[in-house]
């Protein structure tokens, strides 16, 4: 395993969180992730995740005309996606606390 496996779940959560702020398109999403400090993955990784999240109806997409020319696919969260984000936030803070506890050896 599976730092990749773990990373995927975390990336999922981060994508949901970024999309929840405002609707974004693929490149913007990758750029924001990078801006927050995710450097070690190839940007294209987000697309299989987005495809799956669409299949699971966590996000929906609409095509909008961009200024540059081609139509762009913008993502927004569905109610189900918002729930999923809530769950992720709780899980993540639990995990964070637990891992910190272990590392700091305190009970």
């Amino acid at each position, binding site marked *: 395993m599976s730092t990749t496996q773990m990373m995927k779940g975390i990336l999922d959560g981060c994508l949901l969180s970024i999309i929840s702020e405002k609707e974004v*398109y*693929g*490149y913007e999403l*990758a750029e924001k992730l990078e801006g927050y400090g995710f450097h070690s993955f*190839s*940007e*294209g*990784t987000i*697309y*299989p995740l987005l*495809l*799956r999240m669409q*299949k699971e109806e966590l996000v929906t997409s609409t095509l909008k005309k961009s200024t540059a*020319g*081609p*139509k*762009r*696919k913008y993502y927004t969260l569905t109610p189900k996606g918002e729930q999923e984000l809530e769950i992720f936030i709780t899980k993540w803070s639990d995990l964070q606390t637990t891992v910190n506890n272990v590392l700091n050896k305190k009970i």
Partner: protein
Amino acid sequence: MKEVILSKRSQTFIEDLRVYLFSSGKKEEEIEEIVTELEDHLIEAEKRGKSTEDIIGKSPKTYMQQLSNEMKIDYKTWMKYFVIIIAGVFSISIIGDILNGPISYSLLEIGGSLVISLLFIMLTFWVFKLVSSRSLTYGIQGLLFFLLAIVPLGLFIGLEFATRSITTPVVEFGLIGTWIAGGLTVVFLISISIWAKTLVLPVIAAFLVLPEYLLGFTSMNEETMLIWSTIITYAGIGAYVLFTAKKSK
């Protein structure tokens, strides 16, 4: 006024991805969607000096697989190709045989044709997937496409010989049966063409069958006739394929 500023590498990747997803049996609209999205991403990224690898990672094949795994297989389209090819094989042989009188087929011929058509479809998709996801030399690509063309042909010739030496029950159509089969075939060819929105089957059938039949009315001797009808057949099909390829571009 879309300016193409994409690097050669990215362009190749985009084209390969389209072929890969298509030969994995994915839905055309979904393929178009993801391909456009990635193209857009690559253009934006390259404007800012990123490389193709920064986006798709080191292995295009792995990345294509990841995308493919998240997309549904479009069984309807698969069925469409399957039906077209099977119907094509049968209608072309039926039409060709009808002009020589009442038709009859052995079970081996019928079953064999079905199996070979199925094999041909699977082989086609396999070859396209292979060619699009690996960096093969032109020689090997050419060899694969050559195999793709030669294997079904060889199998059909083999089947032809097998039916001569192995006796299986024969389905006799009789005169009326032949007319009905011919009528059904023509109806089938027309409806398939409308359904699939392509004239490729009737055109191929016509070029395979008509030259020999029409030249039969002339005073040519058998040999010249055979040569000419073969030339017309291949030139005709070739011209049609070129014509449609040009039109679709």
